[in-house]
């Protein structure tokens, strides 16, 4: 049995493909096929009552020249970028704090981060309306302290959307960061101090480089879904803070322009693909140490 014969390796290959079949099937049916349909639709004319009529056209792509769409797209990217940055600034210290607690505390703290997930996303976002609206918690409090006369406009703008996005995606940042920090060898911090580096230099030269993987993973996990968000801006945002996700949703459901909706989806996907590629190149490099 020490020399595997060719037939054996062939059998192994067959076994492997049988084992992989469910996963392959799942990917083809639910990922590749819809993607191809969307790509196909983007080159077809719209049907009168939704759907498509089977005529090839490039018109849908030409519509993208309209600066309105670029405005929405830029806003989406800006908001997603802002969300990612805030999540990182809040999430890193939080993950660091959790990872440096005694083990029995770590699980409890992680649970506290995950618990909000057990509530429906819509309900959690609606809760922010109660907090942010004119008669809401914040405005009532500030007014009763006589700090302001007029209620602040906290709701139905980009500010409210950013809050909702940060709130919704923070766990996606904290969990991968925690996973890297938990494996981090904290004696390296002592070594760095020993060699004369203060806390800031230790952070920049030792801790951040060694937890870069978690930073990149967390940022992608926040950035990618945040770009395509449509529920949060729908509920918390006003007319001036719609994101590209709302536009896509609107083309499919409201305007019944499936081909143009497909074009917008593909543009969005292309933009999101860039950071993914960066991530994969990054993870290949960091395998070296």
């Amino acid at each position, binding site marked *: 049995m020490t020399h595997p014969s060719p037939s054996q390796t062939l059998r192994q290959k067959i076994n492997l493909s049988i084992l992989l079949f469910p996963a392959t099937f799942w990917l083809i049916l639910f990922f590749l096929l819809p993607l191809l349909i969307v790509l196909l639709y983007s080159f077809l004319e719209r049907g009168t009552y939704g759907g498509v009529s089977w005529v090839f056209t490039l018109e849908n792509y030409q519509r993208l020249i309209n600066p309105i769409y670029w405005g929405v797209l830029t806003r989406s990217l800006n908001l997603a970028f802002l969300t990612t940055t805030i999540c990182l600034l809040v999430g890193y210290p939080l993950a660091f704090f959790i990872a440096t607690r005694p083990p029995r505390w770590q699980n409890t703290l992680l649970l506290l981060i995950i618990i909000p997930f057990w509530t429906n996303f819509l309900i959690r976002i609606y809760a922010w309306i109660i907090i942010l609206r004119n008669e809401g918690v914040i405005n009532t409090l500030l007014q009763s302290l006589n700090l302001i006369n007029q209620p602040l406009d906290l709701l139905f703008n980009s500010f409210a959307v950013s809050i909702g996005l940060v709130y919704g995606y923070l766990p996606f940042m904290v969990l991968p960061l925690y996973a890297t920090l938990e494996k981090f*060898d904290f*004696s*390296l911090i*002592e*070594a*760095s*101090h*020993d*060699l*004369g*580096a*203060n806390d800031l*230099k230790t952070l920049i*030269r*030792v801790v951040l*480089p*060694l937890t870069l993987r978690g930073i990149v993973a967390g940022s992608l996990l926040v950035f990618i879904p945040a770009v395509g968000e449509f529920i949060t801006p729908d509920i918390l945002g006003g007319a001036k803070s719609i994101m590209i996700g709302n536009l896509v949703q609107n083309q499919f459901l409201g305007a019944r322009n499936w081909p143009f909706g497909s074009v917008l989806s593909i543009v969005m996907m292309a933009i999101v693909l860039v950071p993914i590629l960066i991530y994969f190149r990054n993870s290949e490099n960091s395998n*070296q*140490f």
Partner: protein
Amino acid sequence: MNAVELVGVSKVFLGKNKREFRAVHQVSLQIPEGEFFSLLGPSGCGKTTILRMIAGFELPTTGEVYIQGEQMRDRPPFHRPVNTVFQNYALFPHLTVAENVAFGLEMENLPRQQIRTRVGDALALVRLNGLEDRRPRQLSGGQQQRVALARAIVKQPQVLLFDEPLGALDLKLRKEMQLELKHMQQQLGITFIYVTHDQEEALTMSDQIAVLQEGKVLQVGTPTEIYEQPNCRFVADFIGESNFLVGRVIEQDSGGVVVLVDETLPISIPCSETFPVGKVVTLVIRPEKATIHPAHYLDQPCLAGIVTEVVYLGTDTRFVIRLTPQSTIVVRRQNIYRSNLDCFAIGESVQIQMASDSIQILGEGQLLPSQTFTASRRENR
């Protein structure tokens, strides 16, 4: 001036349920400049904790640490003139060997050119040239150890701290590195404070050794003092092998004392200390300091007994001899002549001769039943 001085240093850790744990208790040490000073003791005796308090990773609960005469309480680790070689090396995995060594110099904002020369010199000193661009994980354990050493030495600190730096190396490499470290210390003139639980390592390398047990310093002295004149039973037992004979002083004059072991065996020892008649004392006898003879060989009074165990060890042979029903003694004899390798058999009656000035008397001990217990434990080794 002392390179490092500890004054009444204690460290109390708060454990689970706020239970206090005394890891280090009232330790005072003076470590002169340029000395190779070892902290020796069994696992958990507080060696690492003492080292961490000197480096600044822990603050003493009470007491003070002085380095070069300066009080260190308010100085964080990165402002102390000491560097540490860690037990697990703690090399930066994302940096190359050269970058690891340069790290400490970059923190001092030295000019690039100077950093490069000093890194080169340090790597040459630990014989690692040619490996500059490797990452720590591409190095063997011994090489990693050298990088850790170079990284600390390149800072040219007043004091270098070592926490069992050779613990992870195999025996041969460890012996090599011991010599190299000792050599390097003499060459550089830096004060080394060296933590180890290996008594042989401490004896071969140190100028002075502090023996610790359960957070307390038991004895400080040169290797010779520690080995030849242990001041308590623990030190005698921990460093090398010792026979302990517990007895009562029955005679005392200016020249020495006579100790009665097991109510039957009088041993007279010259000593300058005075012990009152009736005091229970322990005699410490190193196995290699006793000689074994056939029965009736000597006509002066001496110890006599029956051989119960013979173990051939190559360089020497180890005999266990029963003196009284309660006491045994271990004697080692160097195997100089092939002809008399097996001249003592089990069950044979023998005499034991000791240079009486090589017996150390300790003013501590308990008669029976612990005595029988120790005797049998020795035998089982």
